């Protein structure tokens, strides 16, 4: 039965994730449209729901352009290297409680969260390959930015996850979900803020979308890509966004757990709802904020997120020593600490001065 399970879930992930990604692309475009006083795509199908399909057909039939002076092999492989890890993230997401009908591919992998952190940083290599293979200066600058960004933001991201692991006492995602009698977003608000910001940066979403900053880098690393290769980048970007939303939902929002005990049988639906919620917040931020500059980006990671994530771990560790099992009333001091720290720390550090004498 084991191989059947594997086959089934590989099929589900490979099928469901792109479909979900297309749905989310539609959602983002419609949502962003509404936020910007316009209807968004509304011509293809009812409410423009077939727009992603139309885009897919367009992209599939487009000519594939390869820069003559580029590195052809690297240029060819890069989209795959970016796309694969985005799919791999979904393998360890638990869809439902153990023993349920749909539970995910390997939801109880005992190093689940470590696996996610490891896998998700592979895509940066793909980004750099794409930039290198394109032989384009814009791409290269964008790839440099991307590398620096990922190296800086992995640390607060991992440290924020560490807080969750400390509280749950396990790295298995199923275990983490089960440990959330009260969702960790309430118990560790500081950890969630840090995780969310760092994840946004990892995803290259506004306000940290420096590597494909349209007004500066035009399209960044995929400036020389067209046709299906470009589509892979595009899909990977959204798949990764959905993936991170799923991780955030699992780690901090209680995953498949039904809030107030409503409909525990359909845990996977609750998971989707929570993913949607996180995704909408990311979208909302994208529709509102301007972009930070590259030195400010680094400064923000090292001067704001990094110290706060250390403090966060310290607090969680001390609390789990003092009150094993972390009783629910800790949410009051934790929220207070988070608020105070954010307010105080935001006045304490300075962001990049900017001008260099030349």
């Amino acid at each position, binding site marked *: 039965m084991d191989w059947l399970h594997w086959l089934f879930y590989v099929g589900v992930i490979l099928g469901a994730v792109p479909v979900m990604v297309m749905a989310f692309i539609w959602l983002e475009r419609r*949502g962003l449209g*509404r*936020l*910007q*006083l*316009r*209807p968004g795509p*509304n011509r293809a199908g009812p409410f423009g729901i077939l727009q992603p399909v139309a885009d897919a057909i367009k992209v599939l039939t487009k000519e594939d352009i390869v820069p003559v002076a580029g590195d052809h092999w690297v240029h060819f492989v890069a989209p795959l290297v970016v796309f694969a890890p985005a799919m791999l993230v979904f393998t360890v997401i638990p869809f439902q409680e153990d023993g349920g009908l749909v539970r995910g591919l390997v939801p109880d992998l005992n190093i689940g969260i470590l696996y996610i952190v490891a896998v998700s940083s592979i895509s940066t290599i793909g980004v750099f390959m794409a930039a290198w293979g394109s032989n384009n200066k814009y791409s290269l600058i964008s790839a440099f930015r991307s590398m620096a960004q990922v190296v800086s933001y992995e640390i607060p991201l991992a440290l924020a996850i560490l807080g969750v692991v400390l509280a749950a006492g396990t790295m298995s995602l199923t275990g983490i979900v089960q440990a959330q009698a009260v969702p960790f977003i309430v118990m560790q608000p500081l950890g969630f803020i840090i995780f969310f910001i760092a994840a946004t940066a990892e995803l290259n979403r506004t306000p940290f979308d420096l590597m494909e900053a349209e007004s500066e880098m035009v399209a960044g690393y995929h400036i020389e890509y067209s046709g299906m290769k470009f589509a892979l980048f595009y899909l990977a970007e959204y798949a990764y966004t959905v993936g991170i939303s799923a991780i955030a939902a699992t780690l901090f929002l209680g995953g498949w757990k039904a809030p107030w005990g409503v409909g525990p049988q359909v845990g996977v639906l609750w998971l989707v709802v929570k993913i949607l919620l996180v995704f909408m917040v990311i979208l*909302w*931020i994208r*529709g*509102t*904020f301007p972009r930070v500059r590259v030195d400010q980006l680094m400064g923000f990671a090292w001067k*704001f997120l990094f110290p706060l994530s250390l403090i966060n771990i310290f607090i969680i560790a001390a609390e789990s020593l003092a009150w094993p099992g972390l009783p629910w009333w800790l949410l009051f001091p934790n929220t207070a600490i988070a608020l105070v720290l*954010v*307010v105080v720390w*935001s*006045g304490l*550090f*300075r*962001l990049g*001065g*900017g001008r260099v004498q030349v």
Partner: protein
Amino acid sequence: MSKFDRFGLGLAKGLALTGKTLLSRPNITVQYPEQRLDVSRRLRGPELVWVALKCTGCATCAKSCPQGSIELATSQELVDNKYEVVEFLVDHGRCMFCGLCVEACPFDALYMGRGYERAAYRRGDLVLPKEKLQMSADRQPSAYCRPEMEAELPLQTLLVYGQTRAKR
């Protein structure tokens, strides 16, 4: 040198506004081919409307044209005490629809049109002879520089009043 000294208050204010917009959906977009707006009464649409009866062939319009896109020729002899306009060619591809010819016409024989879907596949198709310049059902004159016509035309759709559809 900048600090985040307002601890995210400014960020929150912006989010509040966009969130409000997201929920209130004040859609002002017009779905163009299906929905249309009432155009301005003085619209300078991309076409000229010529009234053969009023035209005396004085060529004031041709002289006033900055682009030289009007070509006009009259008959050599008087017909009914009037020179007959033999040729009246307007190159709509060169014309920039500034309306100076309409303004200059001393006999109200030339109008700007109210149509706006006048694209053509070839440049040559935009050079219109006098037969095609005449007023017809889909070639209606606008009140540009003809204030006496203004009252007859429908009122323009104005976004200031929140209108986004043509009145039927």
